[in-house]
């Protein structure tokens, strides 16, 4: 998904899991209506979508593997989630497997605040995997990474999307990256979708039009 600053990309993703409250309308996520949902109902719905954020939002004083396991908190009953020691063994296995999947098996016990930006973002992706969501929503996941780490993260997201069959929506600021990795490119202006097409059928002008007249 491409769009100028302030066009509503992040707002859309945050509304999709109701981290933001939409002013009006409805949010249907994997078949469930989120607006007006409360408590358990809302949490069940949120579990279906895994978020990867622009700033890597890991719990800094916890290890990488614990952070990955936190993705699955929503499925744990309260008594098994009071402490990480009470997490089921199956979850620990899954968390380690998810970390291995993003190439960080060796960093499992490193504290989150000692990881590099790229590593941390991969841990966040592992957390999304561990959540066993049906959909991954990534909000500018490479905005704070150097080109090399950005490349790694996008390759990883693409790979996971294809191998795991996970629908993945990635907000990007660099059209060239979108064209390189996406199957579909969605352009939005002021909250409205202006195109939604495979990259091959889009030309530069239509993409450039997204950023015209926008304040940057």
């Amino acid at each position, binding site marked *: 998904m491409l769009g100028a600053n302030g066009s509503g990309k992040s707002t859309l993703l945050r509304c999709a*899991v109701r981290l933001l409250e939409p002013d009006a309308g409805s949010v249907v996520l994997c078949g469930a209506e989120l607006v007006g949902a409360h408590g358990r109902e809302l949490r069940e719905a949120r579990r279906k979508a895994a978020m990867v954020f622009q700033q890597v939002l*890991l*719990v800094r004083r916890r290890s990488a593997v614990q952070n990955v396991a936190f993705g699955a*908190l*929503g499925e744990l009953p309260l008594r098994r989630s009071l402490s990480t020691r009470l997490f089921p063994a199956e979850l620990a296995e899954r968390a380690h497997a998810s970390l291995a999947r993003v190439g960080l098996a060796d960093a499992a016990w490193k504290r989150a605040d000692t990881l590099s930006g790229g590593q941390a973002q991969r841990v*966040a992706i592992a*957390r999304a995997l561990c*959540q066993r969501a049906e959909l991954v929503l990534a909000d500018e996941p490479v905005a704070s990474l150097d080109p090399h780490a950005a490349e790694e993260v996008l390759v990883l997201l693409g790979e996971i999307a294809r191998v795991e069959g996970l629908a993945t929506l990635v907000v990007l600021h660099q059209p060239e990256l979108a064209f390189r990795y996406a199957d579909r490119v969605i352009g939005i202006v002021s909250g409205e979708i202006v195109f939604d097409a495979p990259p091959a059928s889009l030309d530069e002008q239509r993409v450039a039009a997204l950023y015209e007249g926008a304040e940057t």
Partner: protein
Amino acid sequence: MSETAAEAGLARRSFARPRALRRSALGLAGAAAGAALFVHAWQDTDASLTSLFHGFHNTVNLLGRAVPPDGSVFTDSIRASILTFDTALLGTAVALVLSLLLVPLAARNITPHRLAYEAARLVIGVTRAIPDFVFALIFLVAVGLGPFSVVLAIAAHSVGVIGKLFAEAVEDMDMGPVDALRAAGASRLQVFLHAVLPGIAATFTGLALYRLDTNVRSVLYLGAIGGGGLGFLLYNSLQLFQYQQATTELAVLLVLLLVVERVSLMIRQRIV
């Protein structure tokens, strides 16, 4: 010369902004009021340089009668200082548990409801506003003389103090991990346990230890009004003119305060 020109000339010759005349009149009145306040305070407290001089004289006299320290009260002083510490420890611990229950409600950024927030803030505001001394007077009546009433007083007042500091620490924290876990479908309690607490556990421990240190001092003077402990011993010795006993008790007191302060500081430095 027109009036405005005169004003402009005046303005050019001073650093004061125009209309400063009225302001300086106000300032003068304010200064006078302030001075009156201090004069009143001086008279109200019977402050006098003569008393200060006599007081100094008496103090020297007292010091003379306070040596050598009376060793016979040493074991009692040690026992009392342990009681003082226990009182502070228990009071602080109770306050800590209660504050931890209040914080999820009293921090604006994680509170489940505005009403819960207001209610929790009210509890914190009221208990913080009421001094531990007043609480002690109340609990002395309620549960009788003795250290337990001081435990309750310390706990009641510290709930407000610790609760406020904890809630502010939570309000200042990085909300990122909280959003991340909420987005993944974690419940409020799960988010609190795994995203909020790890981020502020060190701050909490530091604040709790600092509060323990402060509470040891409070227990000393609350002891004097009937709570027992070292403060009570010291107060009695002075009332009974047993200055040599008081010296021993003061020495033990000093060691207690220093040890608590040093240990709490050491732990705080280790965890930050």
